[in-house]
């Protein structure tokens, strides 16, 4: 079960597991710089909803031998230092391969509180929901989602609702679109769960804008681009501090 803070806007950075040898140092740096939970990407060979940066990170991690077991073992080594919840972000085939029961049990045993499967729409989620138990299966909503589906997504989602801010794939963008504001607003009217905006949030100003309409942000490509370019944990800390500051300055 995800226990997320309610006293401030939430910052959820994403890191592809195993992308570089010291990837867990990046996790801890993000935690220290104000992350409220961390999405750990379990890389998939064919990530349908990811743009170029996360695709490259996934390929690099897989080429490095980042299996699910290896990633979980890396995380076990820093478990004593982790204070924020972990959320797995992966694709349905990794769950299928082990079977939903085994996969969900494994994540729970390794301390995960939530799971995001971007290619598993609510209509197909039954078997994973049945296996999830305490693991919160987070549902995604998109700008094109009609009202009846938004209701169903909100009723099914656990932990928070992930509002996909653009009709597009993951990746950095310059501005937060009108459709992001609209979607966040519609979701807030339907649910008491936190509503987090993701896809394209890459800096302080967008975090501030997002914080005004939603309960927080998920940030992936902006983090992963820096890691792929050789950023140190301290460099990531700088980015995280910026986004934290943007969220904290949001006028609700």
């Amino acid at each position, binding site marked *: 079960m995800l226990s997320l803070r309610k006293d401030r806007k939430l910052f959820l950075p994403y890191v592809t597991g195993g992308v570089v040898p010291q990837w867990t140092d990046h996790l801890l740096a993000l935690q220290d710089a104000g992350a409220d939970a961390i999405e750990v990407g379990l890389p*998939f060979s*064919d990530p349908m909803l990811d743009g170029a940066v996360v695709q490259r990170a996934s390929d690099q991690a897989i080429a490095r031998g980042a299996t699910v077991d290896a990633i979980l073992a890396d995380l076990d080594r820093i478990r004593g230092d982790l204070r924020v919840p972990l959320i797995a972000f992966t694709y349905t085939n*990794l769950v299928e*391969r082990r079977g939903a029961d085994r996969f969900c049990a494994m994540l729970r045993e390794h301390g995960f509180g939530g799971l995001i499967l971007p290619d598993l729409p*609510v209509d197909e989620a039954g078997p994973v929901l049945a296996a999830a138990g305490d693991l919160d299966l987070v549902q995604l909503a998109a700008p*094109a989602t009609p009202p009846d589906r938004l209701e169903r997504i909100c009723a099914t989602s656990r932990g928070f609702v992930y509002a*996909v801010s653009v*009709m597009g794939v993951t990746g950095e963008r310059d501005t937060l679109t009108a459709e992001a504001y609209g979607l966040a607003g519609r979701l807030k009217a339907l649910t008491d769960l936190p509503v987090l905006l993701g896809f394209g949030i890459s800096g302080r100003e967008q975090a501030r804008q997002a914080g005004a309409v939603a309960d927080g942000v998920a940030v992936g490509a902006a983090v992963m681009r820096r890691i792929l370019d050789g950023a140190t944990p301290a460099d990531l800390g700088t980015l995280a501090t910026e986004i934290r500051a943007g969220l904290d300055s949001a006028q609700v």
Partner: protein
Amino acid sequence: MDVAVRPQAATVMREPSPAGRFGEYGGRYVPESLVPACREVDEAFRAAWSDPRFRSQLTGLLRAYAGRPTALTPAWRLSAELGVTVLLKREDLVHTGSHKINNVLGQALLARRMGKKHLLAETGAGQHGVAAATAAALLGLGCTVFMGERDIERQALNVHRMRMLGATVVPVTTGSRTLKDACSEALRHWVTTVDDAYYCVGSVIGPHPYPWMVREFQRVIGDEARAQCAEHLPAGTPDYVVACVGGGSNAAGTFAGFVDTPARLIGVEAAGGAPLSDGVPGVLHGFRSQLLQDDDGQVREAHSLSAGLDYPGVGPEHAYLRDLGRARYVTADDDEAVAALHRLARTEGILCALESAHAVAWVLRAAGTPELPAGSTVLVTLSGRGDKDMPTLMGETC
């Protein structure tokens, strides 16, 4: 075996469940962003397919433009050599040179009916890309084709054809840079262009309703062949019906015409890309089926000399037909396919595609054995012609 499967014959290869399931396979595993678009295609197809005006438009195009019905050619000399009666369903004779045009004309008409302005397509060998570019030109639609960088190098001729027909060919540089990555990239692009663009899937794969819809558009192969067999064969139907399987659209279309007969249905996969022999259940490109993958769930690349069979997954309905025992799936390797292509050329004067040659290869191997006893009648679908494969067969890298 036939006696056991006949009771199911009446219900298989009809409409899948509303969720797009063929048994445990199929479904719609797409990002939420694409769910409304898939539903829109589903509703539009249902309406069009039950609209006699749409049907007659499509039939008219298939006749006057694509050149249907295609011939059913008795392979006299090959039959005499093998001791079985071989009938060839000649999809190599349709416009653009392969069965892909059957599906593409249907989907392009549907796209226009839905008010879409642009077709998106993925392609491996380029046959579906060429067909999509052709239909787009015919109906005045734009066309963007996603093609792996490696396939672009291997299939230069088809790239030129697509461009000449007015399509934009987008090289895909990620992953294995082949068909599987072209599919992923086409889906990613569709997310961003969903209002104006229609994703024209090239095989019986993808999220619901595509596997069902593409099979229905390819059903014309099997329906024609069934009627032609009734004229040619004393028994009315062949003992065996054989087709190659990559994604599986020509096989699905062929099988659909014979699934309710006693004919044994045989699908032939490439040995280097045979999810129905070597795969396990998995989810890729929006559907659940048998899939080549490792223990962690990473998709394995297929390896076949024929780019059209170079796909790690297979249409969900084929996985279902296999599990039911209604169809049997076997493999042929590169060498067998090349040998079969040569033999068909020399005995019948037909240069078929490398993909189709896999189906012929099984017949050559099985004829006279208990798998295909002497005296049997066998229908083989030739999915396309071999012109595109000449550089490969000549040992060139084009």
